[in-house]
């Protein structure tokens, strides 16, 4: 999302620790970051998938604590939500 002063914000919600799944994260979206980093001041080295620690350090430095965080399903992880949706569909199909 474009922000003021030529800044962009990247908003992501994830389960667990950032470092745990960072390798998988960059597998899916690393190329997007690599593209953005071409137009970023003082970027971490690319490709970020190969420079995991540098990417983690950069992300930690750029991280901002949200002033508020809304959870539609408090206490549930993404996997839980997907599982419950799948189960409800399954029940509907068999009803």
């Amino acid at each position: 999302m474009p922000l003021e002063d030529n800044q962009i914000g990247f908003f992501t919600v994830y389960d667990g620790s950032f470092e745990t799944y960072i390798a998988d994260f960059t597998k899916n979206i690393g190329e997007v970051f690599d593209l953005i980093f071409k137009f970023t001041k003082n970027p971490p080295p690319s490709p970020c998938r190969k420079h995991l620690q540098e990417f983690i350090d950069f992300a930690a430095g750029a991280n901002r604590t949200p002033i508020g965080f809304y959870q539609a399903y408090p206490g549930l992880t993404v996997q839980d939500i997907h599982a419950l949706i799948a189960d409800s569909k399954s029940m509907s199909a068999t009803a």
Partner: protein
Amino acid sequence: MSQERKTLEPPTQESGGFLRRVFGRGEHDISAPNTDSRTTTKTVLDLADIQGFILRGYRMPIVRHFLLTVGDPAEARKVLGRFVNGDESDAPQITTAEDWHVGFEPGPGDNLADPPRHKPDYCLNLGITWSGLLALEIKNRVPTLSFKSFGAFTAGAAKRAELVGDTGASAPQNWIGGFGRGCDHVLVTLHAISSKAMTTYSARLSALFAEADAFREIWRGDGMALMEVRDGKPVLTTKVHFGYTDGISTTTVRGGPERYPPDHQQPCEPWLFVLLDEAENYFVPEPPELGRNGSFAVFKMIETDVVGFENFLHSNKDKIDPELLAAKICGRWRNGVPLALSPNTSSPSGGISPEQLNNFEYVNEDGSGDPKGLRCPVGAHMRRINPRGQPVTGQGQPGGSNNTHRLIRRGMPYGPAYDPTKPHDGIERGLLGYFINSSIENQYEFVLSHWANDSEFAGAVRLPPKSKDPMIGTQDSAESIFAIPQPDGAPPIKITRFSSFIATKAAAYCFLPSITAIKFMAQLS
């Protein structure tokens, strides 16, 4: 772990019989590269430069591991070079991933007039720890040396032990034979086709190690395929001590030299197991002649508590039949039949051919299948170690392959087969071998820490929080739990009060250098 290994128990009606085809001479036939119909890219793997056990299961009945500490660094480097000098008369040679007949030399028991066979007497491989590279003075002599992407390797197994659950009885201070103490420099692994060949080549190796104080052998461990009696005769099996037939699920490498029976997973990219420049998530160690075509492996010696496991199964017989519990814990019946294909019996009508024993999926692309684990519990050992198409945190759409964290296992039991009539025989038994991967952090350590010893990856709807792998997890008995989902909305059967059924006796993080790399190290002045 029962994720990968080696061979199916083949049908007996084929010519040559089980032993001859699996361990014997003449009949073994490994297809040439790229004959796998699923292989869509031409191989780029330099098989002659890659150590064989990375890409091939040797299917030999006995193995011996030598742990060496460097004596004289220059002499040690010379000895390493002799393992790849092409002169079999000078030293046993490192086995590469090329087909068997390439470079094969007749063994001591061979009649030269016999037709050539396709399997050598022995296979030889080696791994070097980071402390080993230092002791060999590689770092001193190669200013550009870099293992930038491989911090776990340079830290070593002992420092990373807690991360993978090697605590308590499995903690490094309890490891045997000098493992984890900085003198564990080089692991040499010798597979042999017979006891005679093992004796012959062990003697040659021991002599080489000792030449000019190159190396000092500080530990050795032997493994052997388990025997069982069939039709009154002892035969070799592919079983492990807990009684399961092993080696059914295999990791197929795209463009690799081995062809395995079909399963629903895509072949793994070769850079997950061979250090290649095309890798997405690491830089090949530098200089390239040292790093390229190498790999990494975690050597482990794991003691199995067979008595504890069997007693645990029977202690829950009021909740569930012990053999069904054994199947639910593993994900397969002990004869290898997967719950995914036969949830109610180990002997389904019509049978399941060996080629089909790995041909199943947990969750299909449309979400169908067994998402709740009614057939195979989500927390079962093999479903944790290789979730296949099940969605997991960090990756994975339904029906995906979840290949990013795959491992190749090359292991063999040690100790005699468990005899239930003599449960307290005082004999230690377990598994010896390697978990092979390009990234120890992202593969071995990830699987052990997040999939085997945690439950977050599948979510609390599918897995009870704090639950761990019921077979290999590092358990806290008080909070341990294994849920076995039941059909028709019935509450799951909850099995609790697990103990840890395995204990790590030794571990080492090893670099598996290519042939080029060994030559490179050997020529350093």
